[in-house]
């Protein structure tokens, strides 16, 4: 790989990579059984530089913010590189947000440029808030001929012949603004520097190396911090290949493994569990004798790989399982949410190590990851090199808030010094997660201290962001909470949000009111929905500016209501 200590910015490192491995394949874009793109590093450069030149002509210069809203595909990486080349600050937005939410974050980030897929742009232009869009240059990809682009440019035609000028950036300059939450309330735009990313990349690739010939299958959206690192920066700075798959359908994921001989893939627990379900079903369908033999081979593999993975042994013992994954798979990375140990152990016993990790955007993606020496399914691994993890105020069992100090910590939350000061205290990031370090230095997680949930799709959901959807309910007041925040539970799976309803004096919680709640709930994306409501009969404690004192209200509820009082929706 490149010696990243020599480079000051992502643009500079990527630029060096394109020259270092000109004939290696850097990018394959697969869409079902079709292949939309296959580019060498040389071809990638040839496509990206005319785009960079046109962006520069349009006024993109050092520090200019440019957003991308796209599914994971080749134009995402080409556009990102062109933005970095010009010295721009990348704002990767989640394409799964609603158009109104995307417009809100575009406004908050002060993005001046936007690269967006046509179907997403169409939705944005139809949103009520579109009239307020302040982005001055919009590039739309894959627009059909004759489509009305509402003043935007066609990405495919947006290029200039002049040689673009590479704009150097300092390590301490902002590289990306990544939103970890805040679509409904107070946006949390994590400002990450070039130093944050370059340091993180060195640390991650020291444990899970990439090299020319390695193929990483990208199915997580590239705006996701994990995919941005292990599906772009990591492989590119090592001369490896990224294979984008534009569908999450299990049959095409299975096909991609064998077709492209995948080495690594990052996924969220939901996808991992889906793979597990499929494999377990296939094993269960085997004739009893074959199943017995398979179980014996799995047990043997488990015994032989107890101390560390032995890919050769595992592939020899369980060839059919490994062939189904293409025969070259070295590891899966799982993160974004908590994964059950049984699932991790299931794959490890088959000879497929899962690099189970833990992190957050504020910490620059990954905080801990399993180093497989030996594999542990009951922890989220050890701190990455350069990452200090400390448990603040541990209780009798050693459990307390996980705090982190590292060069990879974000610089600040965009335009919010108050929230930054609450999150980073004396250089330590307060994660809001509860954990314990065991004697071997592995981190175990036990729940959350903060009022939020994480879904098995890896989505962080904050009650404040959901609450706005219930505006207009004919009720005195309401408030959304994470159920496990109200009633602490030692788990990080199956987390749910609930709505606390406080009616006017004498007002009943009628069927019509509940229907109104259900209707509003359905406007939310399925993973953001509340799962029940809690009737409450006292005034909410408020601040002088009439905001709900959430911690105080939570304490009152905790003291006076049991979890069983929640009425499921």
């Amino acid at each position: 790989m490149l010696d990243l200590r020599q480079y000051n910015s992502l643009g500079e490192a990527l630029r060096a990579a394109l020259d270092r491995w000109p004939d290696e394949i850097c990018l394959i874009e697969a869409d079902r059984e079709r292949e939309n793109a296959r580019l060498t590093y040389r071809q990638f450069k040839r496509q990206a530089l005319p785009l960079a030149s046109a962006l520069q002509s349009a006024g993109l210069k050092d520090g200019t913010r440019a957003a991308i809203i796209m599914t994971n595909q080749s134009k995402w990486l080409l556009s990102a590189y062109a933005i970095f080349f010009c010295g721009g600050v990348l704002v990767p937005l989640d394409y799964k947000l609603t158009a109104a939410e995307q417009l809100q974050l575009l406004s908050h980030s002060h993005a001046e440029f936007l690269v967006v897929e046509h179907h997403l742009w169409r939705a944005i232009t139809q949103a009520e808030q579109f009239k307020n869009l302040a982005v001055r240059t919009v590039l739309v990809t894959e627009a059909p001929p004759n489509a009305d682009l509402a003043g935007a440019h066609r990405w495919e035609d947006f290029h200039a012949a002049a040689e673009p000028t590479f704009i150097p950036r300092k390590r301490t300059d902002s590289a990306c603004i990544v939103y970890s939450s805040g679509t409904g309330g107070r946006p949390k735009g994590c400002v990450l520097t070039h130093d944050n990313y370059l340091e993180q990349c060195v640390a991650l690739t020291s444990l899970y190396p990439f090299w020319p010939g390695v193929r990483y299958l990208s199915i997580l959206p590239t705006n996701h911090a994990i995919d941005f690192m292990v599906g772009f920066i990591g492989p590119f700075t090592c001369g490896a290949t990224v294979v984008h798959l534009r569908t999450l359908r299990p049959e095409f994921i299975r096909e991609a493994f064998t077709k492209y001989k995948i080495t690594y893939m990052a996924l969220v627990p939901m996808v991992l569990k889906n793979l597990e379900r499929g494999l377990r079903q296939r094993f269960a369908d085997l004739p009893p004798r074959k199943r017995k033999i398979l179980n014996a081979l799995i047990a043997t593999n488990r015994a032989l790989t107890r101390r560390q993975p032995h890919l050769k042994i595992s592939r020899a013992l369980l060839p059919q399982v490994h062939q189904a994954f293409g025969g070259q798979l070295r590891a899966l990375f799982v993160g974004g949410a908590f994964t059950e140990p049984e699932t991790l152990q299931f794959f490890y016993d088959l000879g497929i190590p899962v690099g189970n990790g833990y992190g957050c955007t504020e910490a620059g993606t990954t905080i801990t990851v399993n180093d497989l020496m030996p594999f542990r399914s009951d922890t989220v691994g050890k701190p990455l090199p350069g990452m200090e993890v400390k448990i603040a105020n541990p209780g009798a069992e050693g459990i307390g808030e996980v705090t982190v100090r590292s060069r990879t910590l974000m610089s600040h939350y965009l335009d919010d010094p108050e929230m930054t000061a609450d999150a980073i205290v004396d250089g330590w990031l307060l994660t809001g997660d509860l954990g314990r370090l065991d004697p071997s230095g592995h981190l175990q997680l036990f729940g959350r201290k903060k009022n939020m949930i994480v879904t098995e799709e890896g989505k962080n959901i904050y009650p404040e962001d959901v609450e706005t959807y219930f505006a207009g309910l004919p009720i005195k007041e309401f408030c959304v909470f994470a159920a496990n925040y109200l009633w602490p539970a030692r788990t990080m799976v199956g987390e749910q949000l609930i709505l606390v309803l406080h009616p006017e004096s004498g007002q009943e919680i009628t069927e019509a009111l509940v229907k109104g709640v259900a209707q509003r709930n359905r406007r939310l994306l399925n993973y953001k929905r509340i799962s029940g409501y809690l009737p409450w009969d006292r005034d909410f404690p408020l601040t002088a500016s009439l905001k709900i004192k959430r911690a105080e209200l939570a304490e009152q509820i905790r003291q006076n209501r049991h979890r069983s009082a929640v009425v499921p929706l």
Partner: protein
Amino acid sequence: MNTLDKTTDEVLRLAAEHFKVQRAELSPDDDFFKKLGINSLQALDLLTRIEQHFQIELPDYELQGVSDFRTLAQRIQSRL
């Protein structure tokens, strides 16, 4: 029955078959995530079945923000 109703009816039948529930238990306005107890990946599985039946191609994003059968049928209808 108009064309959209027919498409909705077909979608309900395919969903009932795929997830092994009685057709009569499903209604066009049902939230399929809740009613069938499925996640978004399992819903994508249904799209494959729908594509084969209607002989169309539905990108994954067509399911984005959709959680009831009627809206799903509308998305299909626009591609028929």
